[in-house]
């Protein structure tokens, strides 16, 4: 029996048990709409699932039953004992089939025509006539149900020998309470162990030390094991989906590809169980409603194969699940019409609503725009159930839809029980935990402008008492933890502080703390109900030393301080988006090499700085190499020599992927933030040109050239030419950080103003934010939305429809170029051919100007 089937059986048996009770309740209180909806959903789920498992008998019975229940729910049919018996008969039949299924792994043969006819008759409002018909089929399931128990005894022996036996033994269901208790006990054990170890440390040669060591190890293993029982990768909830999508695509005659990202994101198993059904439903919806038929897709200029993308990741103490399709988007007009027709909103209300608000009507109960009821979806149980289920676990759901481009559902689930890594910080002598997931970086800063502190420390500046920090040429809004939490006096001794740079959604902010300790793995426990209104905390936990600590919620802090609302957020957002505009300041690493030249390279390009002993430099095959982290790293000296004569050799290490190289320099001088504006084009290979950095003329290194020297295939670099172009603004879309870092200065040297983004989605956000560019250079191979898709999206309409679009790709070939042109690219340049790219950009812009 496959896993899908056994899961289905477990689930269905649970549902059936609930159904019996619910139906009896219903008979007693026929007006209870909630019970009725509950029953309807259960039957709907059974039907939906068995449709995919290829269980036609079960599906037909459930479908017919669901029809009747749908009528009852819509109150077009009254709840009478006759109808309830009829539904009970259907449930009995389902049970009989399920029981047989559990034993043989296949549906038993049998005919349900009579029962289905009776159900259909009841649905068609012929209740009285249906009553005798309902009686008739009842013996049938009994007769059917009877035979299985007989062979059961006999079959029980041979069956274990077959494949079924190990399956039953592999899993047992344990209530979460048991796991929770275990967890508590283990935490206690760990604390006791720690105390024992502390005691043992004070005694030399204690006879207990060896057994204590073992106890310690076992405790650690036990702790890990218990932790593991609660955590599961989200992929476990997804493993049914490929099959589901495959079947769906067959059924619907659509070509569907399912992309799953972040499958190893760990979720608490309880949460995981709760999102399984909503997730299945949403994927099914995307396939059924979201994606168009191949013909429609062709007509819309999309690839025939539609894509459903699942993406899971941690964000700010939550788990975000994105379910997106590249289909037709939500039909806003139809939703509006339906909302009006069903009285959910008046015409005037609708007129005042944005598209987004109207789209959210699909989360209302009983709302479905599908005009026909298919076996797959479209009965009006749908997104409302999904929403209810997600909200049950304290999550939220939202959607984004662009007509013709697809729909994305964003589900945010809290990690009530999840284990997270947290950074422990201190403010005013009190310790707090910040989920590591939202921490971007830590910056040392000083509070006191008088005290110069050590080099590299930034100063916390104040605008009318609002603290801000200059961080890589942006103003980072700061929040003092002491002030925010009203902890009392800020520690000013030495004036030193740490700034925890945290990302909240699209925004960045800095949290000022006094000290930063280690990171610790913590189990998030919800705060007591009387503290729920304090939104600054997402929970609390017990640290390894037994002390209780509050977990800060960066989202709550952001909300509490206004980051992410109003003008401040816009300021930060634009700052974020424009980070790499070449006119802005860049952190430059200054060094001396090749005699006494002062040279600079963007710090972002340098992977590491190293100082290796001279005797570690070896010569092999005419090249200078060194052993570095278990590999041979080629070394290149700028002056072509073998480096200096000092006992140690400073190196700039460049890395991309698994290729690394070291550039031998004489001396590393400093890191300064300055505007990288190349004023003189280079006269020698290996340099981009000369710029004034930190007040002195500095040769800017052309990293590409040196990389090629080390690795012939890294890419062929041609030094850029200083140029006069009237500051055309170019948007660069490439997923490789390295490439972006390389191209921004190179194109800047050629006279372009460059804004670089790492994904097509980010680029489209810029478009939607109203940014204009003179030309766009895009990579073809990118995760999520590739270059071709990006080009089609741009060309499909909008403000960028006419902008010259240049493709970059590592693939060289006519068919690729052709595919690119068809997608809407103006021109096509092989990646890393800087000169060609600059020439192409100029041509395209010139053509545009001429046109």
């Amino acid at each position, binding site marked *: 029996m496959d896993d899908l089937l056994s899961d289905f059986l477990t689930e269905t048996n649970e549902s059936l048990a609930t159904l019996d009770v619910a139906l009896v309740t219903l008979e007693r209180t026929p007006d209870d709409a909630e019970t009725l909806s509950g029953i309807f959903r259960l039957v709907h789920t059974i039907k939906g699932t068995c449709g995919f498992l290829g269980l036609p008998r079960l599906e037909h019975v459930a479908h017919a039953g669901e029809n009747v229940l749908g009528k009852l729910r819509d109150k077009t049919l009254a709840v009478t004992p006759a109808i309830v018996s009829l539904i009970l008969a259907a449930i009995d039949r389902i049970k009989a089939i399920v029981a047989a299924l559990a034993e043989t792994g296949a549906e038993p043969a049998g005919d349900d025509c009579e029962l289905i006819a009776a159900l259909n008759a009841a649905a068609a409002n012929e209740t009285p006539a249906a009553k005798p018909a309902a009686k008739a089929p009842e013996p049938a399931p009994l007769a059917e149900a009877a035979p299985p128990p007989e062979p059961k005894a006999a079959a029980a022996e041979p069956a274990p020998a077959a494949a079924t036996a190990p399956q039953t033994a592999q899993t047992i269901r344990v209530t979460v309470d048991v796991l929770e208790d275990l967890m508590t006990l283990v*935490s206690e054990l760990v604390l006791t162990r720690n105390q024992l170890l502390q005691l043992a440390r004070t005694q030399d040669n204690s006879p207990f030390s060896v057994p204590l060591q073992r106890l310690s190890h076992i405790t650690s293993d036990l702790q890990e094991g218990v932790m593991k029982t609660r955590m599961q990768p989200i992929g476990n909830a997804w493993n049914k989906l490929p099959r589901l999508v495959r079947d769906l695509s067959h059924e619907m005659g659509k070509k569907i590809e399912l992309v799953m990202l972040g499958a190893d994101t760990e979720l608490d198993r309880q949460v995981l169980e709760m999102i399984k059904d909503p997730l299945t439903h949403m994927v099914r919806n995307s396939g059924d409603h979201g994606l168009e038929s191949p013909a429609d897709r062709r007509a819309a200029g999309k690839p025939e194969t539609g894509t459903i993308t699942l993406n899971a990741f941690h964000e700010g103490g939550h788990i975000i699940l994105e379910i997106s399709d590249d289909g037709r988007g939500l039909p806003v007009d139809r939703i509006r019409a339906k909302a009006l027709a069903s009285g959910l909103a008046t015409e005037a209300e609708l007129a005042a609503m944005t598209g987004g608000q109207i789209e959210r009507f699909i989360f209302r109960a009983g709302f479905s725009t599908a005009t026909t009821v298919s076996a797959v979806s479209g009965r009006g149980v749908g997104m409302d159930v999904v929403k209810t289920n997600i909200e049950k676990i304290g999550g939220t759901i939202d959607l984004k839809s662009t007509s013709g481009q697809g729909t994305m559902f964003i589900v945010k689930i809290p990690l009530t029980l999840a284990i997270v890594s947290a950074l422990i910080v201190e403010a005013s002598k*009190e310790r707090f935990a910040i989920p590591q997931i939202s921490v971007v970086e830590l910056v040392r800063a000083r509070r006191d402008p008088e005290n110069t502190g050590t080099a590299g420390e930034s100063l916390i500046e104040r605008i009318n008492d609002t603290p801000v920090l200059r961080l890589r040429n942006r103003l980072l809004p700061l929040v003092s933890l002491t002030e925010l939490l009203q902890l009392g006096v800020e520690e000013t001794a030495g004036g030193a502080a740490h700034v925890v740079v945290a990302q909240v959604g699209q925004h960045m902010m800095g949290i000022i703390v006094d000290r930063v300790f280690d990171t610790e793995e913590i189990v998030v426990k919800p705060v007591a109900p009387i503290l729920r209104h304090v939104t*600054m905390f997402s929970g609390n936990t017990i640290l390894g030393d037994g*002390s209780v600590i509050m977990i800060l919620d960066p989202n709550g802090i952001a909300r509490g301080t206004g980051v992410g609302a109003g003008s401040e957020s816009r300021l930060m957002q634009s700052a974020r988006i424009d980070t790499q505009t070449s006119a802005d300041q860049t952190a430059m690493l200054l060094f001396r090499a090749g005699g006494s030249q002062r040279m600079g390279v963007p710090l972002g390009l340098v992977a590491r700085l190293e100082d290796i002993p001279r005797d570690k430099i070896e010569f092999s095959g005419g090249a200078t190499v060194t052993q570095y982290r278990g590999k041979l790293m080629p070394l290149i000296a700028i002056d072509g020599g073998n480096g200096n004569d000092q006992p140690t050799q400073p190196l700039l290490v460049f890395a991309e992927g698994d290729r690394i190289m070291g550039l031998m320099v004489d001396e590393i001088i400093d890191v300064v933030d300055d505007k990288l504006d190349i004023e003189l084009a280079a006269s020698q290979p290996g340099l981009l040109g000369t710029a004034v950095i930190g007040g002195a003329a500095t040769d800017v290194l052309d990293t590409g050239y040196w990389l090629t020297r080390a690795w012939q295939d890294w890419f062929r670099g041609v030094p850029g030419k200083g140029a006069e172009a009237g500051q055309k603004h170019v948007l660069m879309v490439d997923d490789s950080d390295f490439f972006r870092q390389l191209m921004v200065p190179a194109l800047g040297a050629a006279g372009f103003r460059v804004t670089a983004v790492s994904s097509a989605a980010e680029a489209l956000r810029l478009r939607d934010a109203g940014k204009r560019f003179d030309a766009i250079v895009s990579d073809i191979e990118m995760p999520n939305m590739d270059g071709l898709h990006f080009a089609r999206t741009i060309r499909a309409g909008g403000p960028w429809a006419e902008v010259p679009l240049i493709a970059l790709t590592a693939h060289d070939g006519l068919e690729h170029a052709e595919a690119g042109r068809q997608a809407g690219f103006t021109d096509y340049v092989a990646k890393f051919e800087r000169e060609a790219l600059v020439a192409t950009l100029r041509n395209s812009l010139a053509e545009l100007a001429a046109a």
Partner: protein
Amino acid sequence: MTVDILDRPDTDVSGDEQQVLVTLTVADQLCGVPVLAVRDILGEQAITRIPLAPPEIAGSLNLRGRIVTAIDLRRRLHLPPAPPNQPRMSVVAEQGGELYALLVDGVSEVLSLDANQFERNPPTLEKTWATFSTGIFRLDGRLLVVLDVSKLLALADEG
């Protein structure tokens, strides 16, 4: 007295032959809580302060792996704060699946008291005390205020 009884609904105290109370002191006042409401008595504990919490909440502490919210009984009863460095004890009670520790000045003994020593709150009792007290026991030379644990813990409902 009839009027009094009508004014205040019956509490579970009346009619019981015996009441078993854990006695404790807070600001020199002898108080008692029903022994069945008490899960643990703790000595001095390391308490983590919870910023922005209501003033009655002293913080949280770790009781064998469970996080317990500590409520300062002096603050709850609008009494002056305890002198610094005075060791405090905790009476742990459970409500709605959550554990709470009531910080008191001292816990002494468990007393079994006769119902005939019991009196309802005098109508003149100060409002804060009247809210949390279910009645008074007349002991030899001292009065013991019976505290209503569930009311003491019902911080959230008061907003």
